């Protein structure tokens, strides 16, 4: 079954979704994996910074701030 995916950067504040993939040509991938952003991990967008970017996400109990172009490498499904 094909999943409908969207980038983490589009996740509205306060909502949650599951990770389905990390863009594999991203140099950031390894770092995101180490933070626990593996497949099926639930991510929640919790807080925008004053300028709207970066955004803080709740990943496995820790709050991690990512810039939108970095967060767009993380694909989520509803």
């Amino acid at each position, binding site marked *: 079954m094909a999943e409908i995916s969207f980038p983490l950067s589009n996740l509205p504040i306060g909502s949650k979704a599951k990770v389905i993939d990390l863009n594999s040509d991203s140099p950031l991938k390894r770092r995101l994996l*180490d933070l626990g952003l593996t497949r099926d991990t639930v991510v929640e967008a919790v807080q*925008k910074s004053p300028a709207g970017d970066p955004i803080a996400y709740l990943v496995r109990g820790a*709050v991690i*701030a990512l810039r939108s172009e970095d967060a767009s490498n993380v694909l989520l499904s509803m």
Partner: protein
Amino acid sequence: MYIKANRPCNESTPKNRSDDPDKVIALAGNPNVGKSTVFNALTGMKQHTGNWPGKTVVNVQGQHTHNGESFRMVDLPGTYSLLAHSAEEEVARDYICFGDADAVIVVCDATSLERNLNLVLQTLEITGNVVVCVNLMDEAKKKKISIDLPRLSELLGCPVAGCSARSKKGLKELMDQTAMLCRNPRRAQPAPVPYPGPLEEAIALVEPVLLDKLKGRLNSRWAAIRLIEGDAPIITAMERYLGCPLSADAALAPALDRARALIEKGGIPRDRIRDAIVNSIISRAEMIAADTVRFENAGYALNDRRLDRILTSKSTGIPIMVALLAILFWITMTGANYPSELIANGLAWVGDQLTGFFHWLGAPAWVRGILVDGVYKVVSWVVSVMLPPMAIFFPLFTLLEDFGYLPRVAFNLDRYFKKCCACGKQALTMCMGFGCNAAGVVGCRIIDSPRERLIAIITNNFVPCNGRFPTLIAIITMFFGSLALGFMESVVSALMLTGVIVLGVVMTLALSRFLSKTMLKGIPSSFVLELPPYRKPQIGRVIVRSIMDRTLFVLGRAVVVAAPAGLIIWLMANVHVGGISLLAHCTGFLDPFARLFGLDGVILMAFVLGFPANEIVVPIIIMAYMSTGSILELDGLHQLKALLVQNDWTWLTALCTMLFSLMHFPCSTTCLTIRKETQSWKWTAVSFVLPTITGLALCFIVANTVRLLGLV
């Protein structure tokens, strides 16, 4: 911020076991789990701890004695993983893999154990001699998180000790476990992480071929996995350590080829091996955490989120940040006034007694001049003007740090740094610069991209360090605070100082942008910043720590530099050539040039002579004026102002002096640190020239605009 702690005791020199009877214990852990607190509690050392990731940038070592046994503790930089390749992670990984430590203590945060287990499992894959220290048990209890430690120990297959390092609870048990492990090191242990079938088969294929190459110096399973995934930097490090080729080895290469084919056939494509490995580790961590951690209160982080909404939101984030800074300055300036005066009076009285004493001794006038008017007066200025503001500002700032506010500053400002093609973590290094620019420059190691790191290093000097703070505070109090009366006087002063700092930040951004467009062209790299949980600062501890360690240490350094400087200046002021003092020769020479920038020869020379330490700039100015003027006693800012005004200071001179103080060449210590960090004289020169030109240009524009408009 802490110069002592940044002494790099060990930059990956493996110890020589034969002449070192002590057991060596490495401390590893994710950033911001209280690893440095554990280290300090065990070693009695005072490495700086703050609530933000990336404080420990080099290995720091200390000694710990437990039941008569001596241990050498090595504090490694905080890392999330041993697989990624940032500078800190490499230091930590190399030490754990190749440092021959007798045991590794992995410090974990009890409030986010699951993520911490990633590093625990990765460490266990390298060595069986691991003790897991679950720190911050007190925080976990407050957040109603309970952890089944015996079960955790059982699942991990290694000793586990719960502790609350800040209140020194559980450290004895931790060291009991560690000492026991050192006495009975483990040779073989079950694999901490099971991998998917095809990977396990591949490991089984490669591991036997590897065994006799490694000769027990590395864990064979771990080495096999690294070779199979083809992690080039780690393989190179392994080959260097073992002194023989691995991936090009005649027996290994075919085994690796077969192993990879096996994995591919098993349905894992070549470029997904790493994903599969990481996934296995993370799922194992997830499973262990699910079995051992219980959240009795699902909304345990709600307060943190509420606070974040206030401290980092669009409407309030930045105003609160500036307001906090202004309040900090207001408390500092208001609080420092009275003690400053008191100390100045006290020290002046001592000075009088000293003069009397020399008279009584019948010592020649020049001896009295050198010692009392030269050395003593400069030192007493430094003490009376620097001590009170520092003793107030540092503890307050450390409270903010302890609370966890600084990462929020980086979060708030990242967008602006990104616009200048720089990294938001630069805000953290700037905060370190408040204490000492040399420490700020070392702290730039937390920035991964070399280009962005260089930018942060070069611009760090736009944040005034504690050597320049008192100068700024004194000038503001003398020339600008008096614009208002009573209570408002201190408010105006605090706002003015905040303005100066904001200007420093603006200049940092502007110069970062300039560098990104010229010498250091490039696009911003990725940015990952953890916002750690807020923690209740330990007020009593912070105050004692920051006064005892930071304030007195910096003051001591200032006095050490100020005393000989006082002597030299006194000599220059009193040795006459052709009827004019040496000092007057120098300042006279600089004077016409300095006037272009709203300064005068004395001020400019003070900055030049203040190269060893910014603290002595004002004392030099005072000495230079006093040697020609008529004021002989100086016990307070009122007389100082009178002295300055007598020497033609106007508010414009004060303003330009402040601007130049904010923007000029870094002190000698900082320059040497920049040289060391960048390994380049060229970038050291840029760091020297760029702020100086900026400062002179700004002073020139301000001075001449004001003069043209006829405002002075």
